[in-house]
């Protein structure tokens, strides 16, 4: 057993050959994380015969300085600073013998401040979710949560606009914003597409949105889309006396083209542009920089995240993606609906919303938040609830998410039997009556349906909407629900 221990004698440690990761110093149960350390919580499934501490040490090693054998060149460096330190391993509740799931462990790993380049998500992710995720001794690994020290947070500029400034620019306060994604996703010409934008915004929406896969295909060139959409936005603005916007998706094959599209959006007077998560962290940070220099709100669609966030045993949790996105600097981020058609149980989704909107996120195991996170006055992201929601759920949405959220009813606006304007009116009336009732002190979770019914008496479009989507729910068990140990005292 002594062979498993950390080898501290320099001659022994560096005599060449292969040592266990624990022996190399990546398992440090006595280590006390520093206030400037980044802490990662990995959920790991070791291969048969690999013990949990060795697996945790391997994660620490492979996500920092280790290679598979001992190298004397370590001795030229202050190598202990560069070694990540696994300092704690817990069994994941409800896994292992007697359950349907293989034994999993939560491994806590600390990283020194020197490991990551200032202000670079690309650099941080290259370590934390790099080689380690393909490492053979682990069957599966998931970066479950992360705590980023204030010292590192302050090297990022964060959202270019933030919730507060966005609201001031839009002149909209005290209620969620309303949006809709244009449908059908594909095939509309620029002129037809602008019609949908116009109807939605004039009806009462604040924003309309390009879909994630609308870029510049054969059926609609991007310039056409931008021109027609901005005509619609401006006309809707003069029809209502309110500021309106359309998220113009500038996602393209290369940065030069994205900049060109963003510049065109700006020249047309758009107040917001949009990108997809698939463009990558560096491109996101570049667009964030551009938006900051050009007074532009930046909307992020999280296209692609489900490929690595959804499965509980492997990948990166969306909590971590949300934290990185806030550092990288986007203003809007799709963060789930809880009640709609896409993955996410209500508590977990609320955890994402906290990450977006808090000044200081508190540890909250029931919402899947393993760590406190001090955001050091970094601006806040507006979460976006989009996907299979409708006005009949308004009381649930307002209760779950509060005011600072964009509620996007795509089908729930455009699919209204009396037309898109009627759909938008129904949503806006439903929203306003619910906010009013909540502020008046009424119990909207209990009275919600009655509040909507009462408002529908003087609003035919709302009456029709409630009838059309009556009882539409997506009740499936969430794949990614929080697992939390009963005794955690994470640092």
């Amino acid at each position, binding site marked *: 057993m002594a062979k498993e221990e950390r080898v501290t004698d320099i001659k022994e440690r560096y005599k060449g050959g292969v040592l266990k990761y624990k022996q190399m110093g990546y398992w440090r149960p006595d280590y006390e994380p520093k206030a400037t350390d980044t802490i990662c919580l990995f959920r790991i499934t070791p291969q048969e015969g690999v013990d949990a501490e060795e697996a945790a040490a391997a994660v620490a090693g492979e996500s920092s300085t280790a290679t598979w054998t001992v190298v004397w060149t370590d001795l030229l460096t202050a190598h202990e600073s560069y070694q990540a330190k696994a300092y704690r391993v817990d069994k994941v509740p409800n896994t292992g013998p007697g359950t349907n799931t293989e034994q999993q462990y939560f491994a806590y790993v600390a990283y020194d401040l020197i490991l990551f380049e200032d202000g670079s998500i690309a650099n941080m992710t290259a370590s934390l979710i790099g080689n380690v995720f393909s490492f053979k001794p682990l069957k599966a690994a998931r970066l479950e949560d992360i705590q980023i020290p204030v010292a590192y947070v302050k090297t990022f500029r964060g959202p270019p606009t933030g919730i*507060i400034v966005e*609201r*001031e620019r839009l*002149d909209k*306060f*005290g*209620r969620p914003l309303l949006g809709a994604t244009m449908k059908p996703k594909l095939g509309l010409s620029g002129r037809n597409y602008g019609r949908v934008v116009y109807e939605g915004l004039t009806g*009462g929406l604040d924003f309309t949105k390009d879909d994630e896969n609308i870029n510049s295909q054969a059926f609609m060139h991007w310039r056409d889309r931008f*021109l027609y959409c*901005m*005509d619609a936005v*401006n*006309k809707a*603005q*003069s*029809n*209502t*006396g*309110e*500021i309106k916007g359309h998220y113009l998706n500038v996602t393209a094959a290369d940065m030069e083209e994205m900049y060109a599209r963003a510049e065109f959006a700006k*020249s*047309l*007077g758009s107040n917001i542009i949009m990108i997809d998560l698939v463009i990558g962290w560096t491109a996101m940070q570049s667009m964030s920089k551009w938006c900051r220099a050009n007074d532009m709100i930046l909307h992020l669609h999280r296209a692609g995240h489900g490929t690595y966030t959804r499965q509980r045993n492997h990948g990166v949790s969306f909590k971590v993606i949300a934290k990185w996105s806030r550092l990288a600097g986007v203003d809007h981020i799709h963060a789930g609906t809880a009640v709609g058609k896409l993955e996410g149980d209500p508590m977990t989704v609320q955890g994402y919303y906290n990450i977006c909107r808090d*000044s200081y996120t508190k540890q909250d195991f029931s919402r899947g938040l393993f760590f406190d996170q001090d955001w050091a*006055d970094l601006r*806040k992201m507006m979460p976006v609830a989009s996907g299979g929601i409708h006005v009949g759920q308004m009381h649930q949405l307002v209760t779950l998410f509060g*005011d600072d959220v964009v509620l996007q009813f795509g089908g729930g606006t455009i699919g209204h039997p009396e037309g898109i304007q009627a759909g938008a*009116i129904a949503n*806006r*009336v439903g929203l*306003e*009556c619910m*906010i*009013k009732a909540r*502020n*008046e*002190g009424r119990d909207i979770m209990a009275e919600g349906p009655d509040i909507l019914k009462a*408002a529908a008496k*003087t609003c035919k479009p709302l009456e029709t909407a409630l009838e059309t989507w009556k009882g539409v729910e997506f009740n499936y068990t969430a794949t990614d629900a929080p697992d939390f140990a009963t005794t955690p005292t994470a640092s």
Partner: protein
Amino acid sequence: MRITQGQFSFLPDLTDDEIRLQVDYAISKGWALGVEWTDDPHPRNTYWNMWGIPMFEIKDGAAVLYEVNACRKAQGNSYIRVIAFDNTRGVESITMGFMVNRPANEPGFGLVRQEADGRQIRYTTHSYATDKPAGQRY
């Protein structure tokens, strides 16, 4: 046309009792309240006229209603809104804003298009009310 700025413009106009309930909500949150009016509701006209400075540390919503009604008396044929301010660190901005008065007739806006290079158009939202001098608009 009915201008739809503010939190509750899609609902029937709020009665004084309903305004009071909203004011009480703001007070329960510790927010300050202000009354503002304008005869130019252009969406980019940020600074309406303040009806006095915002009321800080108020305990009784009746004080706000009193100011709303005083403003109505003096500027009855204009737009009047109540807004709430939150001074919490990290917010320090407006947290509520809703109309409590409108002119009898709302002329609304026209959209002026100036054709520019290529197919670009420069847009101007024109507030019809401002065709007349201040004081004669409604």
